C-alpha cells in the first residue's frame, strides 16, 4: 500500500505501488485482526492491524491465514485417471492452481482491484468484481429493505425488494468502472505496475433488474423533474444527482449479477446501474430516489469526482466514460518466450459500442487491427486479441480503442495536455507494456 501524500488519490482508495504477496497476506490477516483493536477509528484500525499482521507475517511463528478452506484439499494424484475424484459440493471453488484474487483487502474506506491479468473473455466473476465503498459494506436484510421514490412525482411510492422483482425486467451486459481507475498509472507511472494496479477498477457483468423508467412511470414524474437524487443505505448514505433523461435511456434498478443475487459488495439487495456512467454514480444499496429540479451538489459530485483543468476550472458531472482499452496479457510481471503469442486485452466505452481496437508492437509507430471477440455490446467490455510473433528484440505493446462516436483513445501526453498532470479522475490514456530482450514485461505508461 502506498505512502502517498496525495490525499485525493488516497480518498479514492487507489494505490500507487505494486501489491506484493506479503501485502496480500498482511491485508487478509488485518481484516480479522482489526476486531481486537476496537478503540481505534476503523481505518486507522485497519492500517495498524495490517502493520501488526505484516510484522507477524515476517516473524517465524506467523499466524495461519484465516482464508484456509474448511476441508483440506485431497492429495494430488500422480494419475487422476487411477483414483476416484472428489464428490459434489454445495459451492464450487477455483482450482488449487488458480490464484485469482482482488487486492488489497481489508479496506473499510477504499478499493479492491479486479485481477484483470487472471481473467479471459469479458465477464468478471462476481466475487472478483472490483470493490469501492466509502463506509464499508453494509449488511442488509432484504426483507427490511425498500426503495422510496418521492419528490416531484404524482404518487410517492415505497417498493419492497419483492415488489421491484414483479416489474418488467431486463438483462444486459455492462461494465462498471471507478472514476479513479488508472490514477497512479497516469500520475506516477512505474515499470513495476501490474495491470491490476493500472486498470483493475473496471469489471463487466450481466445485470438483471427493472428499467428505471418503468418505476418513474409508476410514480408519475411531474413536469419540473429534471434530476434525481439516488441515496444508498450504507454508513455514508452515499448520494449522487443524476439527470432524469438517463432513466429513459438505459438506467436500471438491479438485483442480480451474473445470474445470482448481487454480492453485498456490489449493492445487495438493490443498486442503481447507469450504463457507461462513472462507477460512483451507480449507487449501491439503493434505498431512496428523490426527483427534483436541479442537482443537490453532494460531496461526491463536488469535492470528489470533479476534474480540475489547466484553464483553472473544474469539470463537474463528468458522467460518461471515454473509450478505453488495456492489454491484460502479457503484462508485468510476466515473462514471454520467443515465438507466437496472443496479445489480449479489454476495450470499452461509456458512449456506446467499441468499433475498433488496434494493437501496436513498436511503441505506437505502427498499428494493426486486433480481432474483436463476440458481438460488440453497448457500454460493455469487449475482448480483443492480436497474434504476435516475438523475435527476441525489445518491443513495446500498446492498444488503442475507437468507439462508435469516432472517439479514439488518446495517449497519456495528449490527455495531460488538455487536463494537466494533477487532474483527478476519468483517466483513459493508451497504456504500453515494454518487453525486454530477456522476455520480462514491464508497464510502460508514458505514451
Amino acid at each position: 500500500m502506498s505512502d502517498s501524500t496525495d490525499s485525493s488519490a488516497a480518498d479514492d482508495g487507489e494505490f500507487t505501488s505494486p501489491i506484493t504477496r506479503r501485502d496480500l497476506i498482511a491485508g487478509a490477516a488485518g481484516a480479522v485482526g482489526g476486531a481486537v483493536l476496537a478503540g481505534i477509528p476503523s481505518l486507522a484500525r485497519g492500517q495498524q492491524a495490517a502493520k501488526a499482521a505484516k510484522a507477524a507475517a515476517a516473524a517465524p511463528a506467523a499466524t495461519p491465514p484465516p482464508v484456509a478452506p474448511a476441508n483440506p484439499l485431497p492429495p494430488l494424484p500422480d494419475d487422476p485417471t487411477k483414483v476416484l475424484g472428489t464428490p459434489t459440493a454445495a459451492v464450487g471453488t477455483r482450482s488449487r492452481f488458480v490464484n485469482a484474487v482482488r487486492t488489497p483487502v481489508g479496506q473499510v474506506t477504499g478499493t479492491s482491484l479486479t485481477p484483470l491479468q487472471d481473467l479471459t473473455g469479458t465477464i468478471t466473476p462476481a466475487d472478483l468484481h472490483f470493490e469501492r465503498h466509502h463506509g464499508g459494506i453494509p449488511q442488509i436484510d432484504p426483507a427490511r429493505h425498500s426503495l422510496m421514490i418521492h419528490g416531484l412525482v404524482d404518487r410517492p411510492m415505497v417498493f419492497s425488494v419483492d415488489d421491484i422483482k414483479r416489474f418488467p425486467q431486463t438483462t444486459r451486459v455492462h461494465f462498471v468502472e471507478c472514476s479513479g481507475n488508472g490514477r497512479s498509472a497516469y500520475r506516477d507511472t512505474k515499470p513495476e505496475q501490474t495491470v491490476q494496479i493500472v486498470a483493475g477498477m473496471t469489471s463487466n457483468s450481466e445485470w438483471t433488474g427493472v428499467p428505471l423508467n418503468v418505476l418513474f412511470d409508476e410514480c408519475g414524474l411531474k413536469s419540473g423533474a429534471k434530476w434525481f437524487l439516488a441515496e444508498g443505505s450504507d454508513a455514508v448514505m452515499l448520494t449522487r444527482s443524476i439527470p432524469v433523461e438517463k432513466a429513459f435511456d438505459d438506467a436500471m434498478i438491479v438485483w442480480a449479477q451474473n445470474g445470482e443475487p448481487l454480492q453485498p459488495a456490489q449493492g445487495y439487495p438493490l443498486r442503481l446501474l447507469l450504463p457507461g456512467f462513472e462507477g460512483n454514480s451507480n449507487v449501491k444499496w439503493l434505498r431512496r430516489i428523490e426527483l427534483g429540479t436541479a442537482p443537490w451538489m453532494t460531496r461526491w459530485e463536488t469535492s470528489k469526482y470533479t476534474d480540475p483543468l489547466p484553464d483553472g476550472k473544474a469539470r463537474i458531472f463528468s458522467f460518461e466514460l471515454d473509450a478505453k482499452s488495456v492489454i491484460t496479457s502479457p503484462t508485468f510481471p510476466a515473462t514471454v518466450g520467443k515465438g507466437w503469442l496472443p496479445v489480449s486485452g479489454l476495450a470499452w466505452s461509456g458512449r456506446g459500442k467499441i468499433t475498433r481496437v488496434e494493437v501496436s508492437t513498436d511503441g505506437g509507430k505502427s498499428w494493426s487491427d486486433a480481432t474483436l471477440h463476440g458481438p460488440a455490446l453497448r457500454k460493455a467490455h469487449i475482448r480483443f486479441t492480436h497474434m504476435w510473433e516475438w523475435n527476441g528484440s525489445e518491443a513495446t505493446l500498446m492498444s488503442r480503442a475507437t468507439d462508435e462516436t469516432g472517439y479514439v483513445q488518446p495517449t497519456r501526453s495528449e490527455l495531460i495536455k488538455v487536463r494537466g498532470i494533477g487532474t483527478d479522475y476519468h483517466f483513459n490514456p493508451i497504456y504500453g507494456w515494454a518487453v525486454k530482450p530477456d522476455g520480462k514485461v514491464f508497464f510502460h505508461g508514458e505514451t
Partner: protein
Amino acid sequence: MRRLCEVLRLESSVLSLTTSVLLFATGSSLTACSSDSTANAEPSRDYSIGRSATPAEMTAWTTEVGPDGKELPSGSGSVETGTAIFAAKCASCHGAKGEGMPPAYPALIGRDPKGENFVFSTDPKITRTIGNYWPYATTVFDYVRRAMPHTQPGSLANDEVYALTAYLLAANQVIPMNSTLDAASLRAVKMPYVGRFVRDDRRGGHEIR
C-alpha cells in the same frame, strides 16, 4: 423511438380485445422496439405494485441539503462550539488542525498559498480542502450530518452539525472566527471558488477534452 413504441403499444392494448388482425398490423413495429434490448422501452402502464409513501417516512428520510439550503433544519452553532466538537469527535482521524492523515483521512483545513487560484491540474501534490476547492458550503453540512463521525455516522445533533460547519468554514478562512451559523446565515455563505466549476463538455467524437 420511445414515444413511437409507447403509442404503438397503447394502440395494441386498446385493440387487443377486438381483432387479432389489428394486433398483427402493429406486430412488426413492436418487434422492432423490443429488439433493442439495451434501451429502456417498456410501455407506460399502471402496474399497481408497491404502496404509497407516507408523509412521515418521507420527512424522516429526506435529510439532504442542496446548494440553495432550502432544506436546512432549525438550529444553530458557533465556531467556538464547533472547535470543541472537532477536537472531541473529529481530530482523532482528521488531525488536531484538520490537516488530515493521508492516505486514509483527507485534509479538511488549509489554505496553502500554492493551492489558491485553482491550479490543481498542474500538480497532484497540492492539497484540496474545503476552503480552496468545495463549491458549496451546504455540502459541508449535508456530508457531516449524513456521514460523520466516520465510526458513528448520523450521530450528530443539528446544532452540532451547524457548529462543525461553522468551525470548518472559519478555519478555512471562508467566514469570520466569531461566526454563528443557522439556516439563513449558512445559505448566505458563498464559497471562494464556486465560479470555477463548469459542466462536462465532452461529447465523444474526434475531440480529446
